């Protein structure tokens, strides 16, 4: 048994926080207490290192467990079979969503008059960003309009047509860790708006990059939520329908990155895409 030569009370207290520290669950003040202690106490710093090492090893081992492709295909077959009997309920859901959307818009409009400017701005941002979310949800998630094995780039370019074929490469190049499975022009039922939709798989999820002509809709001035580090493109963010969405304005287009990845990751992806997309859209004219 080791003999402890440090302030064991203080160490004991810090070590009780180490699990929450590793999970990023400490309050800011407690985190700085822990950090201050770790700077001074080599034993506790080593202990944290040991715990992080085990955690990292576990994550690595777990992530190396490969999910069998046959299982994915078998489940998709079962889902397709059950989808046929499910269309009725899905239609009811679509109506309920549309109604809920309408209620939100009406309530939002009434309440907006009384809200302070910033909150007002945020709601408008969310409303505009909902354009992207609805396309992602309807086309990619519920509609499952993408194949399991990525469509070849030639086919995707053809689907996008001459105007947007060049954008495909720009999106793929600026989406490291993702594979574009599908790209097409689509629209959300009940709206004439056209979306240029890229569906990509990576980081264990499905992500959409969506472009749509702004046609008078714009992200409001003065409510920029975060300034993009790349060039002069401003990013807007919102959490809607369980999705994180990051939006930007680009040469007469609104661009969206929609995923259920966390907010920061979604913003980072949008940040990397915004400027190159800006340039590519400028080239398409």
């Amino acid at each position: 048994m080791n003999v402890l030569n440090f302030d064991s009370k203080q160490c004991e207290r810090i070590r009780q926080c180490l699990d929450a520290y590793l999970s990023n669950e400490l309050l800011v003040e407690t985190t700085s207490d822990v950090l201050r202690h770790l700077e001074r106490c080599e034993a506790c710093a080593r202990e944290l290192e040991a715990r992080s090492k085990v955690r990292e090893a576990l994550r690595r081992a777990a992530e190396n467990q490969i999910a069998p492709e046959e299982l994915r295909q078998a489940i998709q077959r079962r889902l397709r079979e059950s989808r046929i009997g499910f269309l009725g309920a899905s239609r009811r859901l679509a109506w309920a969503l549309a109604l809920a959307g309408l209620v939100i818009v009406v309530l939002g409009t009434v309440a907006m008059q009384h809200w302070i400017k910033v909150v007002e701005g945020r709601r408008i941002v969310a409303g505009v960003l909902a354009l992207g979310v609805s396309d992602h949800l309807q086309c990619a998630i519920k509609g499952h309009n993408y194949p399991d094995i990525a469509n070849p780039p030639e086919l995707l370019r053809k689907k996008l047509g001459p105007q947007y074929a060049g954008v495909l490469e720009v999106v793929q190049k600026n989406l490291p860790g993702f594979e574009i499975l599908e790209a097409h022009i689509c629209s959300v039922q009940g709206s004439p708006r056209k979306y240029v939709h890229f569906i990509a798989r990576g980081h264990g999820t499905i992500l959409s990059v969506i472009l749509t002509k702004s046609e008078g809709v714009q992200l409001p001035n003065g409510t920029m939520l975060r300034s993009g580090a790349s060039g002069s493109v401003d990013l807007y963010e919102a959490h809607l329908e369980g999705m994180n969405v990051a939006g930007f304005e680009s040469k007469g287009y609104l661009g969206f990155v929609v995923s259920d990845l966390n907010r920061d990751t979604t913003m980072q992806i949008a940040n990397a895409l915004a400027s190159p997309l800006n340039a590519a859209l400028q080239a398409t004219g």
Partner: protein
Amino acid sequence: MAHFPALYRTARLLAQESAEAEDLVQEVYLEAWKSFHRFERGTNCRAWLFKILFHRLHHFRRRWAKAAKVEPFEKPEDQDSIMAEAPVPQEIRDENVLEALGKVPIEFREVVLLADVQEFSYKEIAETMKLPLGTVMSRLSRGRKLLRQELAGVAESYGIRLGNNQARTGESA
């Protein structure tokens, strides 16, 4: 199919055999598809799928181990103690971790996987597993500790050198 690899990995590390894990994951997607109308808008889809996974898993487990006695989870002596930290092997191989993880009782293993592999927040884990927040925290703490102890045991049995991170703790008293 959103979150398929993550759900499969978690199921595989909690079920006893790969066939069970495959059945589980299949059931999760079918159940999710059937009950999509119950998915609460504005909540996280990944968390929702994991909730279904754990619901099914606990249902399975009750069937598997009807007669098995479950030990109480939180004993006073389980509290963190500076003296009780197990040494961490210098080199950790995937198979060592998986073997050690298999020895960690499932109640702890599931919380550790959700926190450390899936990186769910304490609150999300509490909601997914229908546990009080305090229980999530104590199971995570205990689970990490058990994993580390088992890992030391596994490494030792293979003759892998244990790290000296603990041996040196305060040795110059």
